[in-house]
């Protein structure tokens, strides 16, 4: 099986000022994850590494560091057993995604929330950091300003920071993994759980049908259980562009049924992959074979050779 990794840095109206940094960020993350796959590493290790690279990228993304106070993280792997782990509404953790993996590997549960998640983090020696370390100054100002919750006027064209980051990978053994992490929407209510940590919505993977990571308007994604919907469409499909068609059909359904915009990355068990969105922009990158593909605007499909 030819290893493949696809990462995204959130589907939203990425402003030009962030465009360059965002593209550079996902390209670097895809390279990092792909390096693991090239040496025979597992899909899970690859997506986790890529995700951590994105979570650390303070300049461009909003998950983990740079996230607004509460974060959700989800990791789902082992398409064989459908094992999964997630945390929601966890505070003061730099890498929610690593904590989510620990929930999967070290507990009988799939999801931990709030104080229980923090206690678990402490019990397994994941250190917490002061809130200040997770907030950039501009975020703090914005958060103070918008602390009183107000609904997003139009989820299709949200221009405020709304970054979810995610990765899906296929390793040389044919195993699939996906991971998604987010700071959630700015000014969310305390304790709001978005799609990221919900297994069917933020991400889903099954070696038999494929792996998906979603981004966009979380509430809309949840209403149509977007990740699972894409995989159902992949299971039903037999077309050449399996992943792309399944993602497009599902995003169109979400727009039509609940007027929500978003994006998704997907890999089929065959290695067919897609990065598609209905928002203005979504930054994404794919490493496969000798090439690195990436894009930001709807029709983008840039390609460069992976060096070495």
């Amino acid at each position, binding site marked *: 099986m030819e290893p493949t990794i696809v990462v995204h840095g959130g589907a939203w109206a990425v402003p030009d000022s962030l465009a360059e940094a965002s593209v550079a960020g996902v390209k670097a993350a895809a390279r990092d994850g792909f390096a693991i796959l090239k040496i025979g590493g597992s899909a899970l290790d690859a997506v986790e590494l890529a995700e951590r690279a994105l979570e650390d990228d303070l300049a461009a993304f909003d998950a983990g560091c740079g996230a607004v106070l509460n974060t959700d993280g989800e990791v789902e792997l082992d398409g064989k057993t459908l094992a999964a782990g997630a945390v929601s509404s966890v505070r003061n953790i730099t890498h929610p995604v690593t904590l989510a993996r620990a929930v999967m590997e070290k507990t009988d549960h799939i999801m931990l929330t*709030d104080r*229980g998640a923090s206690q678990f983090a402490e019990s397994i020696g994941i250190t917490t950091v002061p809130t200040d370390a997770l907030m950039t100054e501009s975020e703090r100002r914005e958060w103070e300003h918008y602390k009183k*919750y107000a609904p997003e006027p139009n989820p299709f064209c949200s221009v405020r920071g709304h970054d979810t980051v995610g990765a899906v990978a296929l390793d040389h053994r044919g195993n699939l993994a996906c991971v998604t992490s987010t700071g959630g929407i700015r000014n969310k*209510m305390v304790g709001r759980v*978005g799609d990221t940590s919900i297994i*069917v*919505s933020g991400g889903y993977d099954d070696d038999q049908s494929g792996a998906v990571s979603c981004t966009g308007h979380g*509430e809309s994604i949840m209403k149509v*259980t977007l990740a699972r*919907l894409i995989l159902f469409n992949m299971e039903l499909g037999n077309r050449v562009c399996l992943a792309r068609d399944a993602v497009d059909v599902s995003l169109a359904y979400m727009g039509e049924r609940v007027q929500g915009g978003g994006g998704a990355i997907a890999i089929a068990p065959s290695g067919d992959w897609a990065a598609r969105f209905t928002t203005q922009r979504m930054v994404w990158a794919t490493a496969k074979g000798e090439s690195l593909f990436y894009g930001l605007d709807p029709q983008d499909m840039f390609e460069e050779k992976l060096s070495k």
Partner: protein
Amino acid sequence: MASLPVIVVHGGAGNIPRARESMSSAGVREAAKAGYVCLQAGGSAMDAVVEAVTLLENNPTFNAGRGSVLTQKGTVEMDAIVMDGRTLASGAVSAVRRIANPVQLARLVMDKTSHLCLTAEGASQFARNMGIPEVQEESLITEYSIMRWRKNLSPDANPVESHMGKMGTVGAVAVDLQGNIACATSTGGMLNKMEGRVGDTPCIGCGAYADNKLGAVSPTGHGEAIMKVTLSRLILFYMEQGKSVREAADMGLAYMWDRVQGRGGVVVVDPKGEWVARFNSLQMAWAAAQGGQLHYGMYGEEHFTRDIQEQKEPEPQSQEAHSPTRSTDTHTDTQ
């Protein structure tokens, strides 16, 4: 004969101790009747499922609201969800403490916020803002749940297996006279769960799904398994591909067993009012009301039918009193 309106409720899949069978059966019948009265009076499917689940939460026989199982630490943390098939609107709360009716709070999340799920302390803050009274934790705890909690603290206990011994989650699905579909699910979760554990119930597509075009599902069983196969949405996908409610429910449960060795049960309706209550655990207390008839059962293919007006309800043998303090527990145990 399929007809509208219809409501189907369940009181959880598992192994029900014989002593508790009649209470469980009476509880789901009462809830189905109450929901049906609401539907017949022109109430919405959403009103009916919330009404039915509220009764089940208030009934200490079931693992939801009062009577919920306890966490490792001996506290009560509850999950609940509602979903409206007209708009796919949904509301949920996870790991919420010290409120009497999580299903009503879930409905408020749907009606009063633009979010779908609030968790733990955030859910409590929201409840306070909505003027929902905080209740004493003790009022949610029964002697039976304390006994089971103690029993499963021992290192060799298997809470997953043992959980099947206590009635699980409660839920309801309904179609109203206008053809609108709704569902609701509520639970205390898994016996001796870690603090902060969130199961399938508040996760849309896992613990509930309703779509006017397809139908609605409320599941019960091993939450982690239900999440892994996204059971509710899975069953509706089968129906979307032309399967009957019964075929779809059986296929979904069979898939869950084959893929992740999970057991459970579901109640399902479709837009025409076809319904089914299916499970692959030993028992699931369920009841349905449709066309002036009350249907109910608990074992395998059991299916009793009677006129809904019939007054002769067998009385539950004993009502479980809630214990004001845990020290009154007299069950023998290791701890």
